[in-house]
């Protein structure tokens, strides 16, 4: 069941593959706004780069949440899937996994490029990729609850940010913290361990919250 549903999601994304690169481009543009707005000074940039890249990744992941349930809700497909699939859990999991595959993973792959633009060093770049790799699935997971809750609301978009961003904060703090420790040559395994625990915890709990959220929304 999960497999087929996942294929459906990926097929849909493939059909609008042009949209796939959009979060990436948003990520790229947002990050490159900062040197323009703040300062082009390299030393400064390399200090603030990790934080900026993490925040931009957060925003890109959040903005692309829209595509998770919104369309399906408005044309009645979400109802149909929840009623007819027999397994709401698989529906939600398929959505979360495909969201990560199409948004989180590309962000991880893209991040070294931006890190170089922000004058970051080798160690820090490695840490950045690693933390994003652990962190982005959490963003997709938590995001799916927020999106599930707001899918039926007009102008859900900005409300979504109000619900989701505060929940993203711990991941942001640990992710960005680990990178800046790495940049200073310190050990950051503590942060990684915490992020890992957070990931495991949310994989096991969050899908149920998402199912509950969607069930609330479709009635």
């Amino acid at each position, binding site marked *: *069941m999960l497999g*087929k*549903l996942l*294929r*459906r999601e990926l*097929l*849909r994304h493939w*059909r*609008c593959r042009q949209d796939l690169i959009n979060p990436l481009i948003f990520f790229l543009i947002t990050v490159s706004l900062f040197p323009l707005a703040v300062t082009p000074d390299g030393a400064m940039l390399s200090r603030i780069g990790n934080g900026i890249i993490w925040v931009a990744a957060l925003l890109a992941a959040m903005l692309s949440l829209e595509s998770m349930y919104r*369309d*399906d809700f*408005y*044309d*009645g*497909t979400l*109802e*149909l*899937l929840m*009623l*007819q*699939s*027999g397994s709401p859990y698989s529906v939600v999991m398929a959505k979360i996994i495909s969201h990560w595959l199409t948004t989180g993973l590309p962000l991880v792959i893209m991040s070294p490029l931006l890190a170089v633009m922000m004058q970051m060093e080798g160690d820090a770049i490695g840490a950045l990729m690693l933390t994003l790799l652990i962190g982005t699935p959490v963003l997709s997971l938590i995001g799916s609850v927020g999106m599930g809750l707001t899918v039926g609301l007009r102008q859900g978009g900005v409300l979504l940010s109000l619900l989701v961003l505060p929940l993203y904060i711990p991941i942001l703090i640990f992710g960005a913290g680990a990178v800046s420790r790495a940049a200073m040559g310190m050990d950051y395994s503590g942060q990684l361990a915490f992020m890992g625990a957070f990931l495991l915890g949310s994989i096991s709990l969050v899908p149920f919250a998402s199912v509950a959220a969607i069930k609330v929304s*479709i*009635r």
Partner: protein
Amino acid sequence: MSHVPVSNLQDDLILKVDKLGIRRSERWLFRELSFELFRGDIVQIVGHNGAGKTSLMRSLCGLLTHAEGDFEWTEINDLPCLPLYLGHLAAVKPELTVFENLKYHPIAGQFLGDEPIEDAIDQVRLGNYLDTPTRHLSAGQTRRVGLARLLLADTPCWILDEPFTSLDVEGCKWLEQQIEQFAEKGGCVLLTSHQPVHFEKKPQILEIKRPVEALC
């Protein structure tokens, strides 16, 4: 929840509604509505615009909470068997082709093979549009994609909210036939329609009336 093929039903009773009442924005649409659905029944819900037909159907499918009373779908192996609901929304994804729309949406708890799907598409006269993205279809053609699900689902009950909308004359005739055949096979159908429907055997009529205490 489980999805039970028609043929597995032992009992004749499929749905039992007991004194159901629905309220929308503090106003009772109806109260104390009781009826039963048996195999082979075709029941048409009638009522003027805003009577509460759609609300009744959605709450029977679990898509709306009812305010009072209760209803019960017949159970098989302790699991209630759920109906196939086709509502005002067609549940058709514009970016997928006609074929993919049926292929990748589970119906009655399962995904189907290619052949039955192609057959169903031929039957709703969309054979030429198999690989057309559904956003390129007209209003009536989009409804047909949704209706193809009826041919593929193996459930004991169909709940159809204004299924004749946008269908041309030929399409309406075809749908009426399908409904009759399904009832003959032992399914039951609950439907609404504002335009006249033509079945061989007159359908049962269930009228929704405003309760006395609701004044406006």
